[in-house]
């Protein structure tokens, strides 16, 4: 090292979001004070976003192994075997902070980032899903964010030619100051052709390719590791700008590079750009890298090593090629009109050494940047208000009097309503694999060249997680699996995107720790491993945290694609069966929120044993071909699920006549309560008894509740032990109209 050029002033350390202790550790590692470039590199790599310093000790508890797992967490994405020499490669990532500051580019580059994570592994991306959270649409700002985010996802995903096949959106004012943009991507790869981010083989060339490096996105990772205040929108320059066209070229170039025997390792330049890709690849191989910035393609002259190492310009990759294969790699990149340059060599000394114009500008052990970041066991304790949240006196809440009106309000609540306005802006059919388009329990794509199909869903009820993080997380896993099972798929793997507030607050950490426990228990019970994931902390603005939102993306395998199932009724005269037991589960329900403006109570009870038995049964009857439709009961409860089965089919709407016993329940609990482990099936009338009997034999409560047909939606609730009965009777067309066009109307009326 030639010279330590500047001594680091104290406020500079704080500006880099490093604590005094962390700074001391840096000095310890280097045996000297860092220069400004090195300080910048440490600050991004040791940011919460890159280092998982608050979450790592807890993430270790999650089950990550299983017979199908090809690649678990720690790489760019996880991979799970689907047989026939193929595997699915998938991951979900957040782009919350940038999307709040600049919704279009924030969301667009979120899509770009996760796509790169997938094709870096050697997989061709075949499906995207988005899980979004916004504040209520009454506020202008939230409408602006929704429109911007949807336009950004649409612009990037459509241009890439990767279909956006599904997702979910929830509206709640807690997200007004902190919307969530979580993007899930899945690709297909040959099991023995998975590429990893490793800089193996001393002397191998390190090659930069893709876009040029500019001054955008510097400190993006640090920004994403900080809370927001009223000034946050001034951080717009930290948001990157996406170019999907270049990314498409990058995708094709990567897959062409990977088809030949050229590469040793490859990694995309995401958060922390050139710094993270180089030190992580070196660290994984136990090697070092000599990096020369002189040849790094740049958008403008005069960029400093600090800027070059920290830029988060999009659509860039770093590959380690086999020595002697440089020319072939360069030829392929040039074919696709990409910038490309050999920028370094793998070394055996474990040091990431950065040179610029012949001078060493940084010299840091790669492992200390990538893996030796601080680990915190942050204190955690339940918030003082937790009891107030869960204690709800139901006797003080009047039971439903006009169930027609309640059902209509629920169907047009944007969280429940059709997301047609959104998904019609996404190309959800390109690549001609989409068997089940957006709007059913899970999206299904076929795998060409096989008889298989893959089902995918993203799920999380964050209100449940607020009321009880452990139960909420368990329910999220159960619901995701239930959605897959209702599509005829066996759950085979999971990716998570854990969105929480500021981990330095004990109550946020408590939510996090409990949610992890819940996910762990549920995943172990269902034997679904978590193979990749992402943590997004500091989702708070002006001290107000979002609801804990451990978003899950679950993947299921359909062995025989013909056995794919959808949620809508198929034929008049079919019998409607309800599987599972309805209890007094109003806590945390959409009904309480929309009708009583309360987000309180305990989340519904969940027995993992009951849930698993239900899944096994549903999968069996779907595979046997007995089932006409299957739909999970979730937001809005049984009556909303029934209504959705009537109105959500792509072309035909169907009525239903249903009769329900009230027994000892409240009317609202029966109609709108969100008891878990319930599924609506429709079957040919002559099959009803057989299916019911088999369900009971499997220990699953089941009854025939009605018949498909007609142009009205009718639910007769019989008189119960404590309450009078009631009747829902509405034209199906009216249900459809309220449900299908609600979001569009809200946006147009405003």
């Amino acid at each position, binding site marked *: 090292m030639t010279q330590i050029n500047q001594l680091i002033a104290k406020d500079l350390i704080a500006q880099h979001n490093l604590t005094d202790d962390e700074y001391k550790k840096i000095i310890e590692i280097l045996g000297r004070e860092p220069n400004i470039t090195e300080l910048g590199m440490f600050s991004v790599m040791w940011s919460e976003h890159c280092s998982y310093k608050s979450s790592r000790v807890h993430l270790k508890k999650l089950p990550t192994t299983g017979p199908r797992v090809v690649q678990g967490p720690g790489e760019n994405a996880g991979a799970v075997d689907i047989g026939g020499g193929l595997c699915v490669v998938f991951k979900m990532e957040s782009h919350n902070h940038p999307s709040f500051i600049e919704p279009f580019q924030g969301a667009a580059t979120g899509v770009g980032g996760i796509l790169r994570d997938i094709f870096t592994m050697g997989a061709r991306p075949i499906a995207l899903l988005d899980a979004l959270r916004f504040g209520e649409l009454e506020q202008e700002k939230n409408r602006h964010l929704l429109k911007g985010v949807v336009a950004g996802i*649409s*612009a990037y995903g*459509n*241009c*890439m*030619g990767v279909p956006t096949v599904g997702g979910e959106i929830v509206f709640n004012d807690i997200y007004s100051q902190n919307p969530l943009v979580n993007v899930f991507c899945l690709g297909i790869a040959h099991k023995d052709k998975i590429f990893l981010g490793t800089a193996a083989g001393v002397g191998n060339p390190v090659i930069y390719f893709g876009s040029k490096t500019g001054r955008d996105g510097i400190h993006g990772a640090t920004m994403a590791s900080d809370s927001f205040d009223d000034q946050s929108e001034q951080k717009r320059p930290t948001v990157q700008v996406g*170019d*999907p*066209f*270049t990314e*498409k*070229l990058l995708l094709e170039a990567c897959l062409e590079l990977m088809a030949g025997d050229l590469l040793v390792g490859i990694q995309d330049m995401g958060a922390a750009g050139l710094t993270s890709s180089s030190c992580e690849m070196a660290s994984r191989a136990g090697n070092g890298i000599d990096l020369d910035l002189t040849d790094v393609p740049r958008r403008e002259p005069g960029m400093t090593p600090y800027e070059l190492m920290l830029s988060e310009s999009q659509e860039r990759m770093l590959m380690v090629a086999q020595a002697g294969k440089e020319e072939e790699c360069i030829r392929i990149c040039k074919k*696709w*009109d990409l910038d490309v340059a050999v920028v370094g060599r793998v070394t055996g000394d474990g040091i990431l050494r950065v040179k610029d114009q012949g001078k060493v500008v940084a010299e840091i052990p790669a492992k200390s940047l990538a893996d030796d970041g601080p680990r915190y066991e942050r204190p955690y304790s339940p918030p003082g208000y937790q009891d107030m949240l869960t204690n709800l006196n139901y006797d003080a809440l009047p039971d439903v009097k006009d169930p027609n009106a309640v059902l209509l309000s629920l169907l047009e609540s944007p969280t429940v309503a059709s997301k047609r306005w959104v*998904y*019609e*802006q*996404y*190309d*959800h*059919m*390109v*690549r*001609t694999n*989409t*068997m089940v388009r957006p709007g059913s329990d899970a999206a299904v794509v*076929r795998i*060409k060249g096989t008889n298989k199909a893959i089902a995918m869903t993203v799920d999380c009820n964050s209100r449940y997680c607020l009321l009880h993080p452990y139960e909420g997380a368990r329910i999220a896993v159960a619901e995701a699996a239930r959605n897959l099972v209702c599509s005829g798929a066996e759950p085979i793997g999971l990716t998570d995107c854990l969105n929480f507030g500021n981990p330095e607050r004990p109550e946020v950490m408590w939510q996090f720790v409990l949610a992890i426990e819940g996910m762990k228990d549920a995943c172990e019970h269902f034997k679904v491993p978590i193979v990749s994931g992402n943590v997004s902390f500091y989702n708070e603005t002006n001290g107000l945290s979002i609801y804990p939102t451990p978003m899950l993306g679950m993947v299921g395998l359909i062995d025989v*694609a*013909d056995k794919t199932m959808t949620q809508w009724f198929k034929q008049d005269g079919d019998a409607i069966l309800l599987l599972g037991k309805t209890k007094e589960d109003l806590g945390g329900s959409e009904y309480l929120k929309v009708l009583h403006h309360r987000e309180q109570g305990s989340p519904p009870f969940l027995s993992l044993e009951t849930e698993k038995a239900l899944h096994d049964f549903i999968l069996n009857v779907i595979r046997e071909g007995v089932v006409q439709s299957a739909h999970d009961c979730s937001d809005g409860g049984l009556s909303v699920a029934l209504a959705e089965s009537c109105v959500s089919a*792509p072309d035909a709407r169907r009525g239903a006549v249903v009769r329900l016993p009230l027994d000892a329940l409240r009317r609202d609990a029966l109609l709108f309560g969100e008891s878990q482990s319930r599924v609506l099936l429709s079957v040919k009338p002559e099959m009803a008894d057989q299916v019911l009997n088999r369900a009971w034999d499997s220990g699953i409560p089941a009854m025939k509740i009605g018949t498909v047909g007609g142009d009205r939606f009718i639910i007769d609730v019989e008189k119960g032990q404590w309450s009078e009965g009631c009747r829902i009777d509405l034209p199906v067309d009216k249900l459809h109209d309220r449900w299908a066009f609600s979001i569009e109307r809200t946006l147009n009326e405003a």
Partner: protein
Amino acid sequence: MLAQRAAWEGPRWTRAVKPNPAISLQRSEGGEMKIGVVVFPGSNCDHDCQHVFKDVLGQYVEMIWHKETLLAGLDAIVLPGGFSYGDYLRTGAIARFSPVMGAVKEFAKSGGMVLGICNGFQILLEAGLLPGAMLRNKSLYFICKDVFVKVETAATAFTGAYESGQVLKIPIAHADGNYYTDPVTLAAMQANAQIVLRYCTPEGKVMPEANPNGSLDNIAGIINPEGNVLGMMPHPERCAEVMLGNEDGKLIFLSMLEALKGNKKQLKMVGT
């Protein structure tokens, strides 16, 4: 939706594709047609078109890199959908300058069949192989959904296997599908039966309510006067298989193959 014809009744189109000595109608091994799918940087329906011709219809497909300048031995060319050159500047505006386009024009001029789908249609307009231009969708949004189109004439080499007046359910996926041309050109196209596909209701009524993007005269697809170049915004390759729930688009490709086979005999419908 798809009323299969009971028996083959001979060719329906009047504009026969002229035999062209410059195009070698040399079959690939096995006697299939040889279909060229052009790959521009940013094309993203290229694999889908390849899949339909190759895997669904059993033909030989050659992927043609946009830097190619010589096209030999092809029976037909497809310009696929996507975002060629990112659709920066204007859809298709940069692609028309692509090296391959000179050869595509030559191919078309000498009577070769060229099908442009979505972005491919936009490129055909920019390249002057078809008249008119694309404006932004009236809603200003990208729209991806099933629509209905009416086959206005089965008397073309691209629609010969349909019935005139047949209604197809077919997906669109575009932000710029709002077709426009001047009144004189429109009148000429109308008089000359060059408007091949129009957006319509499921019942086949061509009316403003059925128009998804504001397109002039509900135009979804047009053909050149010679009858060998068709541009269409909807994606027939997305509805050519039972597994995807809809086969209405398949006969576009079958029509092409029938036309190429010299209108001689009923084509064995692979997969039906």
